């Protein structure tokens, strides 16, 4: 009797609603604890980033013009689909992903998660990520009431300020909390109608790839969410220098990476929002690891509507008042 071969998933990028391999043809091998190859994950190049930005730009107007209610439904649908993939997501978080020893990148060697994620911790992270998705789905038709206002002016006019999506945002995920950080970085940008490019966690990109499958089954229009996997060191300078990206959302990166993102943004005034731990937390984090500015993605601040404000521009309108 023959034993059945497992059918392994091909982990690919998610660009414009399709699952292409990297145009460069490169992959990064990931191993499990037993040293077996678990996955060859696409190693995105700057040209994949370029394609993703083109797709995001083309899709953005339609997404922003969808009704707030409809955007909320779609985000909620994503939470529903994540719920159905709870086990798969938890396994992807638990597998101690390690870049194979023959990987040439020094950064890769550094980025190995130091400790194994326990099944309980993985379950907790998945639940927290789904809850956050639902939380932001609810904000879609409410954020404008909170962030917008009616300004008192002298004269027979109404004067309104209303928030509008900035355009194309890039979310750069940290090595830790690959799923919860991804959702926390992504959702606030999606709410007002931005289209986004996610750079999935370099240490464990698998939950990011699974999120692509969530998108395709949630009526997210093609191009609104694009997900790249690969090495941050290779992509960050192109992200910060790209003139057609309007905003960047990151957290839990190294100080050098934060600086790189901010520097490039000075040239075309894209808005860079970097989530960092509070000062006292920073100090203890520094003792733990000099390399990263850790951030607690379970913190309640992640649910703040002010996170949405980083991805809107305000438009002020005058309207004649009756009488």
């Amino acid at each position, binding site marked *: 009797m023959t034993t059945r071969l497992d059918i392994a998933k091909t982990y690919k990028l998610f660009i414009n609603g399709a699952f292409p391999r990297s145009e460069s043809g490169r992959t990064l091998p990931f191993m499990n604890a037993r040293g077996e190859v678990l996955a060859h994950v696409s190693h995105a190049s700057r040209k994949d980033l*370029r394609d993703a*930005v083109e797709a995001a*730009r083309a899709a953005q107007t339609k997404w922003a013009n969808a009704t707030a209610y409809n955007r909320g439904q779609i985000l909620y649908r994503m939470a529903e689909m994540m719920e159905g993939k709870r086990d798969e997501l938890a396994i992807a978080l638990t597998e101690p992903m390690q870049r194979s020893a023959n990987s040439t990148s020094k950064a890769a060697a550094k980025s190995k998660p130091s400790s194994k994620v326990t099944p309980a911790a993985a379950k907790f992270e998945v639940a927290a990520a789904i809850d956050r998705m639902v939380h932001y789905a609810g904000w879609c038709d409410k954020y404008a009431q909170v962030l917008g206002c009616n300004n008192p002016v002298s004269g027979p006019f109404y004067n309104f300020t209303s928030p509008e999506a900035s355009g194309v945002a890039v979310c750069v995920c940290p090595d830790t909390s690959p799923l919860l950080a991804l959702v926390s970085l992504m959702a606030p940008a999606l709410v007002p109608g931005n289209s986004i490019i996610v750079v999935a966690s370099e240490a464990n990109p698998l939950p990011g790839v699974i999120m692509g499958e969530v998108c395709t089954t949630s009526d997210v229009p093609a191009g609104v969410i694009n997900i790249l996997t690969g090495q941050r060191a290779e992509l960050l300078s*192109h992200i910060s*220098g*790209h*003139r*057609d990206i309007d905003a960047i959302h990151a957290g839990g990166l190294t100080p050098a990476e934060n600086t790189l993102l901010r520097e490039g943004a000075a*040239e*075309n005034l894209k808005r860079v929002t970097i989530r960092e731990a509070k000062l006292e937390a920073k100090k203890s984090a520094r003792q733990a690891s000099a390399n990263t500015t850790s951030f607690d993605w379970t913190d309640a601040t992640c649910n703040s509507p002010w996170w949405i404000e980083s991805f809107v521009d305000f438009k002020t309108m005058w309207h004649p008042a009756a009488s």
Partner: protein
Amino acid sequence: MATERAASFTKRSIKDASKRELLLTALSMLDLTTLEGKDSPEKVRGLCAKAMRPYERDERVLGQRLPSVGAVCVYPNLIPTCVEMLRPPAAESSVKIAAVATGFPSGQFPLDVRLEDVRQAVAMGADEIDMVISRGLFLAGQHDKLWEEVRETKKACKRADGSYAHLKVILETGELETFDNVRLASDISIRAMHEVCPSGPADAHGNIDFIKTSTGKVQPAATMPVTLVMLEAIRDWYLETGHVVGMKPAGGIRTAKQAVHYLVMVHEVMGPLNVPGFAEVAGNPWMTNNYFRFGASTLCNDILRQLVKLKTGKYVAGYDFAEA
């Protein structure tokens, strides 16, 4: 065969320095086009400004002045606006004024009406006339009618001083069904124009006539295989008579990469002819904007995007360039 051969031209590896030169050449070959019912003088003024100077920050960003495009291509009513913008006293520009005529885009009008259309366009100051053929008559097998209408149109291009406006014959290949038809229509058009006024280096007046793929109003518009078939007709005519006819693919060429593919094709198909008198382009007159044009509008900004990317290493936003 044409399809496979055309596909092979897209597989060349091109280094950055060559790509840059090709992009600059492609920019100079543009017929910057607007052919819409809603075209206004103000829109055409913008188009003319863009034609003369495609990127006003060129010296600051690229460190060099970019070439003007080959021509602007408009409906006859907008020729006066182009003359006003491109000719003295406002400017002394090398940009040609091309007008579509002969009942563009369908050509479904009586011949005398279509010829009057041409005469008026020439009188208003058009340097080049883009005519459409009667595809219906051609497909019905009335090939002599095609010969006649091209010949009469070329005659109508005659100016008061005896010179001729250049003529581009639009075959509308998307409606001709087969490559054989494209080749036949090309051969007939080339010979009919030649009967009135011979073109190419043999001609003292510098008359240059073109065959052109499409109006841009029909899908598919220009494709590489169709352009290859037409280039071969031009090549065979040159080998037969020594006269040089121009080529203009139009419609559907939107990216700089596509434009580079077309130029690779022009180089590989026409380069070996080694036409005397064109030493500066290695004997290939079709590598100049006198004999090769791209009918396009969005292509311009994509070329500019790539030029800036090559120079600065940074990807560019749509709002960095004026709309064309």
